[in-house]
């Protein structure tokens, strides 16, 4: 489930974001508690708590005192917006750099994408 490339709390936060984006977690739906999460994934509860508090700070989750944590109503829209902005910088630009290096022109890429429409 988790790897050594980055702290687990970041991997937890990314996993929950993916679930919100893909619709596995709905808006205003309750997420697992820190302890449930820790027991399920066999990790220290402080690590799980840090993942959740990161998401609260980013506005993806909100807390209801004494009840638990829930997906923010605008979480999906916000995450989509962020991912869309990063899409060109993180996915398209590196692809273009690779294409340039191996001599594939932009026209060729556009033609290829045109076939996929």
């Amino acid at each position, binding site marked *: 489930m*988790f*790897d*050594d*490339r*980055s*702290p*687990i*709390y970041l991997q937890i936060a990314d996993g929950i974001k993916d679930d919100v984006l893909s619709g596995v977690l709905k808006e205003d739906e309750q997420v697992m508690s820190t*302890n449930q999460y*820790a*027991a399920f*994934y*066999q*990790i*220290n*509860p*402080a*690590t799980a708590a*840090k993942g959740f508090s990161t998401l609260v700070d980013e506005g993806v989750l909100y807390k209801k005192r004494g009840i638990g944590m829930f997906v923010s109503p605008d979480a999906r829209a916000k995450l989509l917006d962020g991912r869309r902005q990063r899409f060109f910088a993180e996915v398209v630009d590196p692809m273009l750099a690779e294409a340039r290096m191996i001599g594939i022109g932009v026209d060729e890429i556009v033609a290829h994408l045109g076939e996929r429409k």
Partner: protein
Amino acid sequence: MIELQDLTVRYGDTVAVDHLSLTLPTGKIYGLLGRNGSGKTSLLSVLASYRKATSGSITVDGVDPFENAGVMRQTSFIRDTLDVNGADRIAKVLDFAARLRQGWDAAYAARLLEMFELDPRKRVSSLSRGQRSSLGVVLGLAARSQLTILDEVYLGMDAVARTAFYRELLADYLDRPRTIILSTHLIEEVADLFEQVIIIDRGRLVLHEEADELRGRGVTVTGPAAAVDAFVAGRTVLGDQHLGGVRAATVYGRLAPDEVQRAQGAGLALGPVGIQDLFVHLTSTPAAGPRPQEALR
């Protein structure tokens, strides 16, 4: 909170713990890592007040725990020897523990015995290595002590028993948070359970950090030797391997996104270093150069 100040343990000419200072807030799971002979058991013995330090001080919640009945009733130290009478049957060992430990949970102990398939009628001397270790886990967990110290309690336990132990440790900790210090060599197996990691080497503190922060802290940079040389210049290199014109250097410290890009642009491959590997690099003696703990400062 436990505070160690300039703690030293000496046996004749041998220095087991060397001017070690450490602050351990209450209620966390700590992983104590160190090679054989690094001073782990000596340090734990002082933490559990099984021995006095040669010099320096230790306080538990502000008081000296040594021969302090109040603190000791809330301290469990499980080590290799188990500190029980080998001729006794398990049932008697548990009865004795129940009388010493105010937090002892007999029903929980019975459940753990069943889980580890330990027969309470058996004598301690007749147990296998793994069964003895399992009994140690039962004694350590069922005491529910505010300070629970488990010194390599997994010895001889098979993978199934160890997994059961880790699950039970976490489940019980989630129910009843307390300070748990676990010393181990099997870092990969338990690293996810630790909140903080303490690494000691030759009696000295090498590192005390949030366990999760160590993930991604080490990076292996592999590629043409000249390109690796240029990239790692000025960084702390913990390990090095050469094969023909290729160099693989393990560097300490997280890389910023632009550094990752720069490395990839230079044709270098970056690989993650797990906590176990980081531990190996930090505690093995390099052929030349400063010892890792000096390099990290």
